[in-house]
């Protein structure tokens, strides 16, 4: 698997880049190592874990939540098999099959991504609470294997959840460095699903707000601040222990999986943009320009929550976001994998409808996301943001190869 990944990632690099590498005397084998700096290439689809979690975060997202419309377990199994096959094709840069045999039928692939590099497309599938119990009904005989970790999220202070951006029985997280590739993937998966599942809601993310590997630079969110400086990075023990469900676990079908929390967080852009720089920095607890903690010099300097200024007040205010959300101080870690989003304007106000589409992966949302979010009740940031959408999914392990399918550990 690794050698195939290296080969394909290398194949995605242009001749120009190869030539440049030769000029500066780099070994080509170095260049072919998968790197978050690469914008093109193929990410492996099959593996122990699903892609799109530890994968170096791509720049574009199309997230889709589906409702299951069939009560037949066999229909859902068939859908997951068809989705797996289509996802394996599309992540490899191939069209959805099978090959067309008649001009009198619509093509099996919709076509807009033909000829495009997959740009490191990953497709990540998750199961919401409705797979286990929907309106009190155990539709597929799976209620007894619903993980306790998949407990419905509690209501948090300041939540103002809109049903139009909340819930879903199944989700697909499509990430790529090419937005058309991500769109194509969700469009075709939606088409395949018709009759068994239908779209409930979608969100498009246009810039990552986290880094998931150590060699990615920290991006900025729509508040203009660096986001995800303290995010955990793949390839570390804290990542593995915080993100992946342990091998011997109950229910066993989730071993190697993870739990995904999604929050559509609207930023009151206009209000934020008229806040003084000092207020902005006190709200976040970091300096806007460098990303350094207030009182420190560089982005990755440790956050000193006890340091005080000459006025005797803490450098980082008591209600600053980094103080309350600080992962090291809390001893709680999640993998953030969010994106900026915009949906144009709010028709009622003419203000920008934009914000942060928060995605987090973890081993147990009750002990991780929920615990952290409760600490944010008094967050100064709440003045500028509002959680308007929410969803929770159990992300099963990856499919091992052709013939396997995502979700087989649950449905077999």
């Amino acid at each position: 698997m690794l050698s195939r990944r290296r080969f394909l990632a290398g194949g995605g690099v242009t001749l120009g880049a190869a030539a440049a590498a030769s000029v500066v005397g780099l070994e080509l084998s170095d260049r072919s190592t998968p790197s978050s700096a690469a914008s093109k290439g193929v990410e492996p689809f099959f593996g122990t874990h699903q892609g799109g979690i530890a994968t170096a975060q791509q720049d574009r997202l199309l997230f889709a939540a589906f409702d299951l419309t069939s009560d037949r377990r066999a229909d859902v199994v068939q859908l997951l098999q068809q989705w797996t096959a289509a996802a394996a094709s599309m992540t490899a840069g191939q069209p959805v099959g099978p090959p067309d045999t008649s001009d009198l039928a619509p093509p099996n692939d919709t076509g807009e991504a033909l000829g495009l590099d997959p740009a490191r497309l990953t497709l990540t599938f998750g199961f919401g609470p409705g797979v286990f119990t929907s309106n009190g009904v155990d539709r597929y005989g799976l209620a007894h294997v619903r993980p306790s970790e998949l407990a419905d999220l509690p209501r948090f202070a300041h939540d103002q959840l809109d049903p139009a951006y909340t819930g879903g029985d199944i989700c697909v997280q499509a990430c790529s460095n090419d937005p058309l590739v991500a769109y194509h993937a969700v469009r075709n998966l939606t088409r395949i699903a018709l009759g068994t599942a239908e779209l409930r809601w979608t969100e498009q993310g246009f810039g990552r707000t986290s880094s998931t590997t150590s060699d990615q630079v920290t991006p900025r969110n729509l508040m203009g601040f660096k986001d995800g400086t303290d995010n955990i990075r793949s390839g570390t023990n804290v990542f593995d222990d915080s993100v992946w469900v342990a091998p011997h676990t109950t229910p066993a079908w989730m071993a190697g999986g993870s739990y995904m929390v999604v929050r559509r967080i609207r930023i009151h852009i206009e209000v934020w943009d008229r806040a003084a720089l000092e207020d902005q920095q006190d709200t976040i607890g970091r300096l806007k320009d460098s990303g350094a903690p207030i009182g420190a010099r560089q982005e990755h300097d440790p956050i000193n929550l006890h340091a005080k200024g000459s006025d005797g007040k803490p450098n980082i205010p008591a209600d600053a976001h980094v103080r309350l959300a600080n992962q090291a101080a809390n001893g709680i870690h999640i993998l953030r994998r969010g994106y900026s989003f915009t949906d144009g304007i709010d028709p009622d106000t003419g203000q920008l409808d934009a914000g942060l589409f928060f995605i987090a992966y973890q081993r147990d949302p009750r002990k991780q996301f929920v615990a952290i979010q409760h600490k944010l009740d008094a967050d100064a940031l709440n003045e500028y943001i509002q959680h308007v959408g929410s969803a929770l999914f159990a992300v099963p392990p990856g499919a091992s190869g052709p013939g396997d399918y995502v979700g087989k550990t649950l449905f077999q």
Partner: protein
Amino acid sequence: MLSRSVRAVTAVTAVTVLVALAACSSSTSKATPNSGATTHSSTATAPSSAASARAVANYLDYVKHQANTLAQTVAPFAAAVKRGDIATAKTLFASTRYHYEAIEPVAESFGNLDPDIDVREHDTSSPSQFIGFHRIEKALWSDNTVAGMGPIADELVINIAQLHAKIATLKLVPEQIAQGAMELLNEVSTSKITGEEDTYSHTDLSDFAANVEGSKAAFQSIEPLLAASDSGLTAMITARFDAVEQVLDKYRSSSDPIGNGYALYNTLTPADTRELSQVLDTLAQPMSKIAAQLF
């Protein structure tokens, strides 16, 4: 893979089907499958010509029956308009056009007949082009006067008589019927779901039901040509027609005399119309595959 040549052939096929359909109406040409279609017959067994003829005859019976009923029902509707009886005209509007909506793709193959009978105001570029059912609809529900509608009503009767006459000599081939079954569902998706078809009367659900009925009649007539090779497609389509009809049945209502047995569309919630749209799309997708199974 979708080569450029394949796309070109598809486009040519679509054009030739329409041309063939138009040519059929002249009553002198003998309908045969166009060459673009017959070159893609490798995967299925061709149905016998007798079976094809039976399928076509069954569908033509349906089309002619609808055209007959339309020609009969448009007369009292036009008469009510001409004598200024707005209340009666309103109760006859949806029930008359039902029989047009059930066979609309056939009318669309006859040049200007479809726009002359059924054009919507926003599809016209000058007031003089706005005639037919929807001009009268606007008079009845929006203008609240039928002044000046006499000539429009007369013209509608004449155009429907022309349609009736052309249909009497219509010839079809099975792939055109498959195409028609699909087009009727597309009609629902693009104009009925949005409520823009009957924007003044809100009788869209009657049109919706007519499109679905017409699509089902077309599908059922060619179903015997599909059964041998379609690997579950016909069973899936049949079940999904049932699902659409079940949702439509939720809105059956005799309380409003103008709805032709259905609730007025402006009483539906966004969740209602979303459900209708989804169940319709779920039917239309497998329907899009039947033409390829015919040969």
